Every structure is written in structure tokens, then in C-alpha cells.
């Protein structure tokens, strides 16, 4: 295996990995997961089993692939040149994630500012309406969906904001620890970050449960319910992924994988965590508060 002692383009050998079967198997696993899901939502009994096989394949491949990358990293395959590739890659991956959330925020802005006012103002503007007695306004489930109670901002959601903002601070504190070679600070900071993330998810679960059982607020509660659950749901999914990644980083820190100079994986996960944090701030202001 070729390693790269020198650091600058032009002199170094860039690390080009050996042929690998992982990408192909990962793609096959994703195919199975998608196929199983399609069959499941169309009531074919084989669906869940194919999904399970796909998910197991994906998880196994992620373990293998990331394990291989960590091994390569620990055996000195990557120098600054490769490191820069990973940094650029992570930045543009997060950029694509931002645009994924942008789609759902757009749906929120569009319905609040365009489709709901139009549906409510038909009688005034056109003299006719398909929806007798519907006047629009926000929050709304639309003309025909069932009654619900909107989620208030200053209860659990405010606590969740505090939790996530603190976790952003603790992960930065952990990073400072890493830069100072203070391993205790590094690990305590990471542990607190994971703990705050888990606490956030627990609060979110309580909130969802409350919404479904007490407030009549479900995915089916018109555009309010749809945008609320899709935005907070995808955010929660990202928090979960982030917490898993932070846990891996914590375990790797305990194994002494990172040095003050070289710790791209730590930074990548920290960036991801801050991204999730910023999305939450937007959610808190635009979905819960305003």
C-alpha cells in the first residue's frame, strides 16, 4: 500500500485505495432497503424482510468501510493532501444537506404565505369559494382536515433549544481540549455532547407522543402537521445520526486515535453537529415560535 510521506501536490503520491467491493455491496443493500420499503407500503408481506436484509447489509458495509478508512488513517496512509480532500468533501456534503432542508422550509413558507391565504381569501377575491367558511390563518390544518392544537414554543421546544445550543458549546470545548492535548476535557466534552443530544431526542419523543395522544396533532393535520413533523422529524433523524457519529468519535478518542494536529474525523462530526444545531434554531424560530 502506498503511503504519502510528502504533503504537497506535485511531489507526493496521492493515496489511491486498492479495489474494494464495499461500495458495490453498499449500493445493493440500499437497493434492497428501498425495494423492501416500496413493497411494505404497498402491503406485500415480503417487504419488511427485504428491508431488514437491506438495512443489515448497509450497516455491515458502513462498519467495514469506515473501519477500513480508520485503519488506513491509523497506518499513515493519509497526509495533508488527502486530508484536504476529506474536508472539501464534508463541506459540500453538508451543503447538499442544507438544500434538503431548504426544500421542506420552502414548503412551509409556500403554504403559510401563498396557498393558505389564497384558499382562505377565495370568497373575498373571486366571489366564489370551494371551501365555505374557511378563512385561512396560521396555524391551520386546511379547510378539511381535523381540529388540532398547535405546538407551543416556550415549553419543551425551548428546553430543547437550550439542550442543543449547550451541546454545540460542549463539542467546541471538547475540541479545545483536543487542541491542548487535554484528553480528559476532550472525552468529557464529547460525553456531555452525546448526553445532551440523547436528552434532546428524549424530549422530542415526549413531544411527539404528547402531540399524537393529547393535541390531535399528527402527520395528517393538514399543512401544519405535515411541515411540522417532516421538518422536526428529519431534523431528529439527523440528530440521531450525529449522536451515533459523536459516540464513534468518543470511542475513537478513548482509543487515542486523534492528535492535536490530525483529527479530521472529529472536526467533520463537529461541523455536522453545528449544522444540525443551526437547522434547529431555524426550526425553533420558524416552526415553533412565529
Amino acid at each position: 500500500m502506498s503511503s504519502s510521506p510528502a504533503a504537497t501536490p506535485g511531489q507526493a503520491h496521492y493515496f489511491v485505495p486498492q479495489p474494494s467491493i464495499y461500495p458495490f455491496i453498499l449500493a445493493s443493500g440500499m437497493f434492497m432497503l428501498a425495494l423492501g420499503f416500496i413493497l411494505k407500503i404497498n402491503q406485500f408481506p415480503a417487504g419488511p424482510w427485504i428491508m431488514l436484509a437491506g438495512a443489515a447489509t448497509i450497516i455491515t458495509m458502513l462498519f467495514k468501510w469506515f473501519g477500513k478508512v480508520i485503519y488506513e488513517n491509523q497506518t499513515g496512509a493519509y497526509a495533508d493532501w488527502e486530508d484536504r480532500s476529506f474536508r472539501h468533501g464534508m463541506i459540500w456534503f453538508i451543503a447538499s444537506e442544507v438544500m434538503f432542508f431548504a426544500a421542506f422550509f420552502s414548503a412551509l413558507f409556500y403554504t403559510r404565505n401563498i396557498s393558505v391565504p389564497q384558499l382562505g381569501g377565495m370568497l373575498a377575491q373571486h366571489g366564489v369559494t370551494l371551501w365555505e367558511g374557511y378563512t385561512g390563518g396560521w396555524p391551520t390544518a386546511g379547510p378539511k382536515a381535523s381540529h388540532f392544537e398547535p405546538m407551543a414554543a416556550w415549553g419543551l421546544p425551548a428546553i430543547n433549544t437550550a439542550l442543543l445550543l449547550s451541546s454545540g458549546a460542549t463539542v467546541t470545548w471538547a475540541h479545545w481540549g483536543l487542541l491542548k492535548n487535554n484528553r480528559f476535557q476532550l472525552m468529557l466534552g464529547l460525553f456531555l455532547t452525546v448526553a445532551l443530544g440523547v436528552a434532546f431526542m428524549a424530549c422530542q419523543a415526549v413531544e411527539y407522543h404528547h402531540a399524537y395522544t393529547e393535541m390531535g396533532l399528527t402527520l395528517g393535520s393538514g399543512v401544519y402537521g405535515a411541515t411540522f413533523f417532516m421538518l422536526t422529524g428529519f431534523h431528529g433523524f439527523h440528530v440521531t445520526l450525529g449522536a451515533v457519529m459523536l459516540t464513534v468519535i468518543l470511542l475513537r478518542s478513548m482509543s487515542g486515535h486523534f492528535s492535536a494536529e490530525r483529527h479530521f474525523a472529529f472536526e467533520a462530526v463537529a461541523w455536522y453537529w453545528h449544522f444540525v444545531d443551526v437547522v434547529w434554531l431555524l426550526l425553533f424560530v420558524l416552526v415553533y415560535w412565529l
Partner: protein
Amino acid sequence: MSATTLPHDAAGHHGEHHPSGLMRWLTTTNHKDIGTMYMTFSMVMFFLGGLMILLVRAELFQPGLQFLKPEFFNQLIGNHALIMIFGALMPAATGFANWQIPLMIGAPDMALPRLNNWGFWLLPPAALMLTLPFVLELFGVGDGALATGWTFYAPLSVQGGIGVDFAIFAVHLLGISSIMGSINIIVTIFNMRAPGMTLMKMPLFVWGWLVTAFLLVITLPVLAGAVTMLLTDRHFGTHFFSAAGGGDPILFQHLFWFFGHPEVYILLLPVWGLVPHVLSTFSRKPIYGYKAQVYSFIAIGVLSLIVWAHHFFTAGLPVPALLYFMYSTMSISLPLAVLFFCWIATMWRGAMTFETPMLFAVGFIVLFGIAGLTGLVLADVAADAQYHHSYFVVAHFHFALFTGGIMGVMTGVYYWLPKWTGHMYSETLGKLHFWLTVISFNLAFMPQFFLGLAGMPRRIPDYALQFAEYNAISTVGAFILGFAQLLFAYNIWKCIKGGPSVSARVWEGTEGLEWQLPSPPPHHSWDVQPTVK
């Protein structure tokens, strides 16, 4: 540009093992192997999508319903589009990127080789997702493939059968593939250029792809979001696109075309990047207006993100929105005109010869010009009310995407194939392929402008009697066009198998790093990076 260091292949790669046979292709991390897989996949999909549309054209040969059920007709047109766009054209462009970008910027490989392989191997599962429902229906499962047209408009797609679900997940897989491919290309361009190759010394093809990759990273996640909303509207009770819950079907159109319009430029920018190289080579003159072309690429990329609603002018948008989208759309013609000017100026007073790639490049300029001019007509809100959803639109976007996209790809294939294989293709067959393609393309699509002007709606399996002659002509043209492509495939196959050997520079007038490598280039090309002055 010139290199001071020549590559030596073996350095730093001792002890490598290379699986052979099928395993070579399943496991490869080599940009050339992956590029070859993309091109091969693209060719297979090109014929599959072509077969689908030939069935459609056969049905449309005469008025009345001949031999396709209308439901099946609907499935064919939607899948023809998805397969041609996501299966044929995008993978062809990505195949070029994989083969050429490392060669042109003096990189040892793509920056993230395993990710690269993953990006490719997501494509066959996606193609399977699109075509599986056709097969399942034969066994009595479901009601066939996506039958909504490729645009999935709600509420039709909310009500559609299992084919819509398959298409949604096909789009997810294709999206992940393209985003990973684009991230890889951006990283490669930013991090892997040879010392001395500043951004403004980069070949235009690489610039075209850089803008393309940004557009993909920005817009594909939005499409993923849109089809996810569609999925939840279908199966999980949300009301994004249903007025009963406060939603709006037009929201889907906004989200779809926020992706869909830049997608047009995603398909075209790599071609606009490669055509100037070909024009310059066969005119034996440097590229005219390099900087102007780079800035035009960027301007078109940015503008393409803010013009999307011109695809649904007739959906009932407020007048200020119509005006905004009309003027912003028309403003794209300014940077595009700069490109046309530069292409023509590159040829101006050159010592021109017309080998097959040059024929395709010149054919591209002429025919794609028609696409641009008819696009201006469609961008006019008042005029569009008549043309919308007619065959005029079909003819317009086939002039854009067949001559602008596919013929551009053919330009690139003939231009670079000798470099890749080390053999010259058959010039006679290539020229025959060009003339058959250009003539039959115009036979197939020129009549459709007139059909559209006369009021024939698109996506309908039957039509009124007065449209009969032009439809018959169009079908004849389409069949010649389809079968002419067998020549293309045969010529490529022959060139891979053998033929006269070519020199490193292949063509007399070539400039750039890739021509300093032998033909075919070694497995690891720029193992030691060249220095660009």
C-alpha cells in the same frame, strides 16, 4: 500549458493486486475503469430509452389507437424521459468527467476513488427500480411503471400506482449517486490540480463540469425533498399537495422545477465545456474568449437557479411572478449568446478540417441554436399560452437535449475515443453516422414544431386527422435516427477491439495535458503530477 515531468506508471504502486473479470468492474477504484462503466451504462440506457420511444412513435404513425394501450403509452413516455436524462445523458457526462478530468488537470485519480465506485454502482439499481414495474405487471403485480410523465406532477402522481413509488426511490438512488459524483468532482477540481494550473488555466471542459457539479449539489436535494413529500402524501397522510389540507399541487411544480430547470444546464454545461476543445483542435486555433466562456458558464449556472417557473406559466401564477420569470429566463440568452459567439469566433479564419468530431460540433452549434431561439419563444409569457404542453415544447427540448446534449456527447466520444483506446475509429462510418443522425433528427423533430403550432397536445396516444402527415414523417425520422445509432455503437465496439494506432496527440491541433500521455493512457496516469507553466 506544458508538462515538465512525464509520468512513470509503476512508481508507488508495487504490490497492487487487480482482480480480473467481473470483479475488476465491481471493485474498481480507477477513474478510467469507472468512466468506462459510466459510458457503457449510458449506451445501454440510450438504446433502452430509444426502444421505448420508438414504440411510442410507432403508435403515433397513424391517428387512432393501433397497438399500445393508452396506459402503457403513458408509462413509455415518462420512462423514456427518465431513462434518457438520468440513465443516458447524465452518466455519459459523468463518464467523460471520470475519464477526462484527472487527465486534463494532471491528477493521479479522482480525489475519492471508492466513493466514485459507489456513485456508479447506485445507477444500475436505480435503472432496475424504473424498469422493474414493467416486469412485475406481467406477473400480475401492480399496474405497471410510472405513468405520470417524468415530471411526477401532483395530484396525478399522488393517485398513481406502485410505479410511482418505484420511480420515487429510483430518483432517490439517482440523486445520491449524482450528489456523491458531484462532490467527488468538486473535490478533485479544487484539490487535485497539477501545480501551476490555476483556476483560470483550467480546461473549459473542467470548468463546465465544476459549474455542473455545484448545480447538482444545490438542486438534487430539493428534488429528493419534493419526491419525499410526494411519498408521504401518497402513503402517510400528509397534505403538501392537497388543497383540502391547505397545500397546493403547484407547490410540487415549484419544487420539481427548482431542480428541473438547472437540470437542463446540468446536461448541457459539460457539453458546452467540451465543444470548444473540439472546435479549437480542428480549426487549429486557440479557443476564442476563454475568460468570457468561463464567466458565461458561471452566469448561466447562477441564472438557471432563478428561472424555474417558466415551465408552468399557464398554471395560474400572479402576473408579477410571470413577468419576473419571463425576463429572468430571457436574460439567460445573453451569456448563451456570448458562448455562441465564442464558438463561431474560434472557427473564424481557422485552418478547418471536418473529421467526425468536428462535424458533430458544428452540427451541434447549428441545431442547438434552433433550440435556443425556440426557447426564447417559449419564454415569452403571452406566446407560451399557445405553445404550452404542445408538440412545440417537445420539439424544442429535443433540439436542446438531443442536439445540445446527445450530439455533444457524440462529439466528445469521437474526439476522445482514440485517446482512450489507442485506436482510430472508422472515419467513414463516423461520417455516415453523423449525416444519418442530423438528417433523421430533423425529419423526426422539425415537423413537431409545426404540429405544436397547429395545436397538437403532447403525451396523448391519439390525435386528430389533420396531424397525420407530419406525424408519419416524424415517425419515419425517429426510426432512421434510432437505427443509425447502431452504427455509432458498432463503430465504438470496432475501435475498442482494434484499428490503426494513434499517436499521443491523436489530432494535429490538440493542446492540453491529456494529449501528453500515451494513447491509451497508462492505468495510473499522473502518478507524479506534471507542472503547468
